[in-house]
């Protein structure tokens, strides 16, 4: 199948408008005859569900948590970017587009990235209207700060809880439409399969997490808004329940999976402290506005941070990347930290961290200003570590974070299965090989509020002419039976090892071989190891309890089974790409001073993988740069 990205005609700045002019419309009387399933209730899911319902569609929204308000968008701390140019510092839609495209190392589509920047300003208007208490000046106007990879101030924020405030706005808008009886909400419900009828997405199979009952839901279109899959590394900044099952099931039903190996390692999380650890807590990138990152110049230095004199500190980001300094993009900052830690300069009990120091900022701006800017982050740091970071530097470490990769989507956010859409982090669209800070809340929101509601009609207009699907169709029967078979199979194994045991093993392999730095030999070995792990899992895992009850162990097992398969695809993708770009750093392709070597002549494409009975077939969507010439990405 030839991948058609459906990029509209015209100049870059006119493409989205041209698309909207030509897109099909559906009259209000007909919209209510059409129903749409939205899986996930984060920024993209809740935004899409609420907006589609406002437009008149009949919407069903599903989430695995007890309430839509828990979705992991809630945890984003630092902010959301928008090209408002409120700071009068030379920002524009073009500059934001260019920063994002360059930040992604020229591995995303120009038209998508431009649209993201173009719609960012109206999105801030939208959230202000919905009552988000963004930070403001005394005179009442909105405040901005900087994030990594840019030289202007375009990030809007609500203390260190921006994601929470945006999600609560989306959740409130969703509940407004639930109250209006235009959305039906299904919490504690997990999608376990996609139903495809005559090549089109027509419904889902869901497990009721309280009763264990399998249920069928039919729809004219299905929207996946299920977030990222970095829990494949087990230790990550993601919520424990975050999983890749919905997109993996869709992949196995025919949706191509794009750039699976593009996963972001965030430079500023709290370091791992024990084997039993379940989660790495993120400390917002916004801290790098004022915090300076350093390690001791001496290897294995055992002195306390405050006892190390200034001349014996290595501010390695400022040294290596003088024009961006501590605000170098995430992939670069993470790799630089790994390089120092591996070279024996790591700090902390397990020597796996670097310092993030506010001493100079406090001296310059005063304690009160720093408290006002980051107070809740310092409080959170103290709650978790017991350390007062106003008095000594924070210890931070790289951690698995965001998935740039995801289901391949075209300009309309439709996957390769007609009628199946993917929005937010679960798709591959705008970020290329590396996402810039504060672009995640942005992309999730833009997809859900602004893009999908303008593109889904183009498909649904034709669905009007078709018969409405019903859940007694044999494809529903078949999908439900497959789900039941795999649940029964897992419960029957009754082996000797726990689900968490296998997840720890998978995490170790993936962190070692498919995270910040990758090489051919390691990836080949990882694929073999994971295949062995998969067989071992299906022979020796033990899940107690039954499928007909609330069973958290079974939920974990089903998610892990999919993660194991996804991990193989991630390694396959990383192995195929013989270049270094963005977060994908292949050791074989680097300069003498350790910078990435991109190979545009061979790899200027998006890899899109087709599932074929356990094997993966590569398709390429060539990236055409019509308006920007890809350059060597330098932050020096």
């Amino acid at each position, binding site marked *: 199948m030839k991948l058609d990205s459906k990029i509209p005609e015209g100049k870059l700045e006119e493409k989205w408008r041209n698309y909207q002019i030509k897109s099909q419309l559906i009259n209000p009387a007909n919209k209510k005859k059409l129903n749409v399933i939205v899986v996930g209730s984060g920024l993209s899911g809740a935004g899409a569900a609420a907006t589609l319902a406002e437009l008149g569609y009949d919407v069903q929204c599903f989430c695995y948590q*007890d*309430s839509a308000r828990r979705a992991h968008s809630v945890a984003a701390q630092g902010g959301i970017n928008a090209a408002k140019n409120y700071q009068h510092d030379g920002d524009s839609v073009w500059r934001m587009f260019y920063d994002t495209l360059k930040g992604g190392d020229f591995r995303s589509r120009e038209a998508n990235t431009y649209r993201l920047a173009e719609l960012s300003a109206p999105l801030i208007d939208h959230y202000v209207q919905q009552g988000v208490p963004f930070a403001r000046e005394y005179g009442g106007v909105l405040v901005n700060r900087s994030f990594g990879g840019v030289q202007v101030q375009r990030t809007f924020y*609500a203390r260190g809880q921006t994601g*929470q405030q945006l999600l609560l706005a989306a959740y409130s808008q969703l509940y407004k439409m639930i109250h209006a009886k235009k959305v039906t909400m299904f919490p504690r419900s997990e999608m376990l399969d996609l139903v495809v009828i005559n090549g089109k997405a027509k419904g889902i199979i869901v497990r009721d997490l*309280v009763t264990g009952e399998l249920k069928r839901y039919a729809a004219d279109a299905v929207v996946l808004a299920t977030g990222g899959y970095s829990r494949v590394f087990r230790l990550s900044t993601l919520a424990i329940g975050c999983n890749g099952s919905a997109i993996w099931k869709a992949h196995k039903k025919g949706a191509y999976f794009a750039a699976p190996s593009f996963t972001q390692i965030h430079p500023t999380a709290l370091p791992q402290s024990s084997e039993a650890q379940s989660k790495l807590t993120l400390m917002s990138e916004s801290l790098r506005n004022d915090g300076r990152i350093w390690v001791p110049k001496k290897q294995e230095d055992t002195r306390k941070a405050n006892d190390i004199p200034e001349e014996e500190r290595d501010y390695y980001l400022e040294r290596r990347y003088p024009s961006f300094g501590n605000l170098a993009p995430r992939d670069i900052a993470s790799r630089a930290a790994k390089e120092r830690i591996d070279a024996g300069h790591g700090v902390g009990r397990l020597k796996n961290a670097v310092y993030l120091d506010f001493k100079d900022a406090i001296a310059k701006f005063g304690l009160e200003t720093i408290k006002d800017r980051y107070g809740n982050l310092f409080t959170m740091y103290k709650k978790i570590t017991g350390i007062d970071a106003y008095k000594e530097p924070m210890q931070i470490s790289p951690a698995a974070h965001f998935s740039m990769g995801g289901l391949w989507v075209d300009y309309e956010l439709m996957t390769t299965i007609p009628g199946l859409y993917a929005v937010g982090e679960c798709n591959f669209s705008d970020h290329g090989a590396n996402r810039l800070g504060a672009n995640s809340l942005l992309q999730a929101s833009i997809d859900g509020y602004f893009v999908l509601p303008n593109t889904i009609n183009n498909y649904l207009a034709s669905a009007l002419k078709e018969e409405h699907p019903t859940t007694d169709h044999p494809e529903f029967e078949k999908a439900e039976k497959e789900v039941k078979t795999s649940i029964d199979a897992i419960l029957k194994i009754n082996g000797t090892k726990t689900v968490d045991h296998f997840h720890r093993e998978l995490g170790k392999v993936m962190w070692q071989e498919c995270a910040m730095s990758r090489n051919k030999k390691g990836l080949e070995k990882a694929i073999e190891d994971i295949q062995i792990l998969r067989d071992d899992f299906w022979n020796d895992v033990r899940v*107690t309890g039954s499928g007909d009850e609330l069973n958290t162990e079974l939920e974990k097992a089903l998610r892990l089974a999919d993660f194991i398969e996804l991990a193989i695809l991630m390694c396959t993708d990383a192995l195929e790409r013989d270049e270094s770009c963005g977060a994908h750093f292949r050791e074989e392709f680097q300069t003498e001073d350790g910078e990435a070597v991109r190979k545009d002549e061979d790899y200027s494409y998006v890899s899109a993988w087709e599932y074929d009975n356990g094997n993966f077939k590569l398709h390429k969507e060539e990236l055409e740069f019509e308006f920007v010439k890809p350059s060597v990405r330098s932050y020096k």
Partner: protein
Amino acid sequence: MQVTFKIWRQEGPNDKGTIRDYLVDGLSEDMSFLEALDHLNELLVLKNEKVIAYEYDCREGICGQCGVFINGRAHGPHDNITTCQLHMRSFNDGDTIVVEPWRTASFPVIKDLIVDRSAFDRIIEQGAYITAKTGTAPEANAILIPKEVSDNAMDAAACIGCGACVATCKNSSAALFTAAKINHLNRLPQGKAEEHKRVKEMTYQMEIEGFGSCTFTGACEVECPEGISITNIAELNARLTKANFLG
């Protein structure tokens, strides 16, 4: 370290439920409280027993999904944190730790330590929003909001919806939760158009969900992970009186 957990086990909403003892060894002070329960669950699996059901998601104190009573206190021995932020270094080797679900009629137990907090969603549904459709917004800086006003709104908006305020209240009152949401929106100019309707309908829903009345003991603000002040409840009462006269 080694501790004895005394944990509430209840098969389902209609089961009577009981406290069961679990002696757990091999814990470390660096573990979070929930990681200690994870460890216990792995041991239970290896003993062929059903795992203990408890809730969590983000494990960084913001999603609000976790929350249990630990030694008689909501979210454990410290003020203003979530259960997931509690670490085993807060306990001593050999301690006995009693773990129970939130206990209030409005949050019925689903299983073990998991309760149904959907009553909160239904309060939100009655008006915790600005009635404006996507696509109708004016330019953001056209609405000037002084820093103090925005900061005050943010103080209230920080609520994570965990339910500790209700669970710790002797009256099972949801006044702090409801007040926080109403004050967030009503303090802002965007929320003014619907302010009276919002107050009346959300407080009415709070009552029909069976939450008790507030007698201003202040127990809630001690446990609130976001430290939301009970002055919010006083403000709510003033708003309600005003709404009843004017709205």
